[in-house]
């Protein structure tokens, strides 16, 4: 490829800008409780935290024999938390999850717990952010199944869903299947990678576009087979490994070529055999970034940045433009990055990004696998494959349109638009619009007044995935909103006998009547008072998202109330309430997106970057492209921290 030459692996000296020194605006107080908790946010201070710890923790965690070596007597001021930040992050999570104090010990109320959690997190984060935003770890990462498929497609110019033969990947980090930590390798992978490489190369050998891409030199008069093969590898390997390739790295592939020739294989077969090895090499299968062995953070290697960009927005390898910018040493320039982000979003490959991100963020990927609406109760849904597909694609395309049109991100909560077609309009009880073209095509449209739709919470995919197969569940929907929309998942239920929503005489009682039992038990009520109310507001949507005015023969009561007394009725009022909390939503979305972009779990330091990006979004009318740009320009994305010395040795 022009731009990258063998033996020219010198990182262009990029300009070190002031990422690491940027100071943050004063921290916005953790908003987690503002929606949910009835307790006043008030002046929770160190003394309150000390009292909490004294009452609930110190009987075990003090003195020489402090359990877990965690001695709370050493905590003299808020700053003490920062000297043991890692321990406190864990301790705080255990308190939040109700694991601490352990069973049998006096337990704090939910409000006490949350106020302590919010205070501790705030102290820790303020400590972490005071030193500026610094990048977290960047572990090597196997290409996941989707990335593998797309990379082979772009590398060889073949259109082939080759990854379908590979096992599916699990997910971790912020909930995505590109998390470095959960991209394991099994013996099954080794077989599948071998087979897929063989299949891809055999396919490429018969495909004219692919041959033109790969076989850049033919042996002939004056060109020895060896020389032609060398040129082919010099062209192919840097693209396959997504960085310049040193001579000594390329030489063994030439030996493979020669070995095949000695076995009597013709020229082309020998070339494709050697290239097959490249597709099984860890240099192809893993994304590897050159280590920073210096003492200071530094701008990320330009080729590594090109890959981070392309795997973020395209889920595939960099194209020639990105490679050229890396080679020219320009890719770290903010104006260049911004321009590239906009170009990449416009490219068709960003559709896959919209799909992967949206479906994993909203959990709608489970629709059709783990979650299948009951075929007997919803025959029209079960029988109509087109409708099912439209429902699944609606949130994906809606998200992508917001990105393409650079609209404010709160459109995801409430919008005057929809991505629709005739089938969806019927499903939603809307009057289909007269329009040109294929009525099946999903398109961006204005919603009529009083449509009861607009935004994720009116979408069938979301409403179905947060229901049971045969009925709605205000609990599941409420928990879904707290988790996916607001980023404040409810803690796990304590070990009390679960209240079954369908318990009792299911034919006469509405779900609401059954759920009132939550209010009777104070242990249940502490959390369900914030979960159920949100879900009730969506009761007018059935388990596949259709509007209904009656449930179990009675009029739907869609009124909800939060623990703090905020009352609302029906989806429109709830959306208005959520819009007032949009900063909470935006912060959650930003954290999810940064976690996706980095392919790992966010650290405390990363949360400083999230705050910073969320602040930029507020200043820029929450513009969708600003979010992507700000993430790409953030320190965690384009700066590489120094490797801690202990990690360098065996």
């Amino acid at each position, binding site marked *: 490829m022009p731009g990258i030459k063998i033996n020219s692996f010198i990182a262009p000296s990029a300009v070190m800008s002031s990422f690491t020194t940027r100071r943050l605006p004063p921290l916005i107080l953790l908003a987690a409780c503002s929606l949910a908790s009835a307790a006043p946010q008030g002046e929770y201070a160190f003394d309150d935290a000390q009292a909490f710890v004294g009452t609930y923790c110190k009987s075990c965690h003090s003195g020489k024999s402090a359990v877990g070596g965690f001695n709370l007597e050493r905590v003299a001021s808020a700053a003490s938390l920062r000297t043991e930040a890692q321990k406190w992050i864990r301790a705080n999570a255990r308190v939040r999850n109700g694991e601490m104090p352990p069973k049998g010990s006096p337990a704090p109320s939910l409000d006490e717990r949350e106020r302590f959690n919010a205070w501790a997190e705030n102290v820790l984060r303020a400590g972490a952010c005071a030193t500026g935003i610094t990048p977290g770890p960047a572990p090597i990462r196997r290409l996941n199944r989707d990335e593998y498929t797309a990379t082979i497609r772009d590398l060889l110019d073949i259109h082939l869903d080759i990854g379908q033969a590979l096992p599916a990947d699990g997910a971790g980090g912020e909930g995505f299947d590109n998390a470095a930590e959960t991209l394991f390798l099994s013996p099954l992978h080794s077989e599948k990678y071998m087979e897929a490489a063989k299949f891809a190369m055999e396919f490429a050998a018969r495909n004219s576009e692919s041959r033109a891409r790969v076989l850049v030199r033919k042996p002939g008069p004056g060109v020895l087979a060896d020389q032609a093969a060398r040129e082919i590898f010099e062209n192919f390997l840097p693209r396959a490994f997504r960085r310049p390739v040193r001579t000594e790295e390329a030489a063994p592939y030439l030996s493979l070529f020669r070995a095949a020739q000695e076995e009597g294989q013709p020229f082309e077969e020998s070339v494709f055999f050697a290239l097959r090895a490249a597709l099984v090499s860890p240099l192809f299968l893993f994304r590897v970034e050159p280590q920073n062995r210096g003492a200071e953070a530094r701008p990320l290697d330009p080729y590594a940045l090109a890959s981070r960009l392309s795997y973020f927005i395209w889920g595939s390898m960099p194209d020639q433009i990105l490679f050229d910018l890396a080679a020219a040493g320009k890719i770290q320039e903010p104006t260049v990055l911004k321009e590239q982000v906009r170009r990449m979003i416009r490219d068709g490959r960003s559709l896959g990004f919209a799909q992967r991100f949206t479906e994993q963020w909203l959990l709608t990927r489970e629709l059709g696998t783990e*979650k299948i609406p009951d075929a007997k109760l919803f025959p029209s849904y079960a029988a109509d494959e087109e409708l099912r597909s439209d429902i699944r694609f609606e949130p994906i395309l809606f998200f992508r349109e917001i990105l393409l049109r650079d609209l404010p991100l709160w459109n995801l909560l409430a919008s005057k638009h929809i991505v629709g077609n005739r089938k969806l309009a019927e499903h939603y009880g809307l009057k289909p619009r007269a329009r040109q073209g294929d009525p099946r095509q999903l398109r961006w449209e204005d919603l009529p007044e009083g449509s009861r739709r607009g935004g994720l919470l009116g979408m069938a995919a979301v409403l179905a995935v947060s229901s049971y197969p045969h009925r709605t569940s205000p609990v599941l929907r409420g928990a879904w909103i707290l988790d996916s929309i607001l980023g404040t998942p409810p803690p796990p239920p304590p070990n009390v006998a*679960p209240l079954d929503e369908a318990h009792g005489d299911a034919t006469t009682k509405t779900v609401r009547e059954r759920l009132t039992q939550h209010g009777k038990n104070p242990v249940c009520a502490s959390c369900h008072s914030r979960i159920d109310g949100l879900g009730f507001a969506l009761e007018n949507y059935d388990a596949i998202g259709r509007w209904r005015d009656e449930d179990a023969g009675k009029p739907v009561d869609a009124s909800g109330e939060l623990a703090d007394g905020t009352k609302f009725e029906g989806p429109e009022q709830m959306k208005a309430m959520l819009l007032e909390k949009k900063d909470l939503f935006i912060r959650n979305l930003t954290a999810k997106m940064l976690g996706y972009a980095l392919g790992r779990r966010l650290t405390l330091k990363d949360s400083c970057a999230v705050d910073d990006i969320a602040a930029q979004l507020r200043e820029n009318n929450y513009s969708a492209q600003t979010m992507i740009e700000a993430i790409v320009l953030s320190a965690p994305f384009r700066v590489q921290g120094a490797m801690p010395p202990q990690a360098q040795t065996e």
Partner: protein
Amino acid sequence: MTMRKPFLSRRTLLRGAGVGLGLPWLEAMVPVSGFASSADPRPPVRMAMLYIPNGVNGTAWRPEAAGRDFKLSPTLEPLKDLKDKVAVLSNLWNAANEGGDGHYAKEGAILTCTTIRKTSAEDIHNGVSMDQLAAQRVRHLTPIPSLELGVAPVATGVQFSTGYTRVYGSHIAWSSPTTPLAREIDPNAVYQRLFGAASGRNANFAKMDALLLDRVLEDAKRLRAEVGAADRLRLDEYMSVMRGLEERVGRAGNPAARKWTARVPIDPKAAPTGRPKDHGEHVRLMLDMIAVAFQSDATRISTFMFGNAVSDVNFGFIEGVKTAHHEASHHRNDPDKLRQYEIISR
């Protein structure tokens, strides 16, 4: 489940295979046919662990009376023809998962008998599962070390309320505390894999593959020297699975190194077509794959997952059930739900 349509001819598939409950007398199911030509006349010992998510209705599961003359329970009643070959173990208990919240603490550790670490991923930790301990002993004897099967794709995401990655609920086979083994869910792909493995490859093919694997292992070694300690673990994982493949390729290409004998050879024409939509049919086919694998001696160790932990498969297709699995499992002693739970387990 009522839809039992054997897709394979009886020549290649034993009826009734695949219901072994993971107990070690599976070999009893294998007839000594004309194909058995191994020097050792005893059938190999195999192990299949079949996992049911969300537990079972214990009252309907536990048989009456202990010892040989026990009475099959309502859930186990379909095994009546094989009763002499069935043993039900009760009172097994994983003390290490007591107190862990939700499903994952229990289901993720079902074959490891340990405490899984609560994490969204970065420091995932389970134990080595019992099937893998067995596989470590016998994997050199067969072309595939062990077979991990299921019907549902791996559940992605993190369960944020409990803080566990769903990786724990999607894998019961762990080759190391940090490595869950990938599962296959497409019966056709499994069949092709078994056929390829059991029939071996020609020597020249194996030689070229070995060359190729040598090459990529060299890349891995070079790379390993350049990365930090945490990343080395990933590359070790890579080298371990690639070396394993290299060994297997080597053995397959060398008839003298073949230690396995197919009791029933695999007929490539009997391959199932793709992944059935019907849940019961899908389960049936995957269980058939275990039988095929054992008969062809492609492997001797297998695990199968009827679903992921917290699986909410809608079992409405069975007469008398109108709920999904996870929901029925939280029955709260409601007789109607308990009955449905029992039917699903059966």
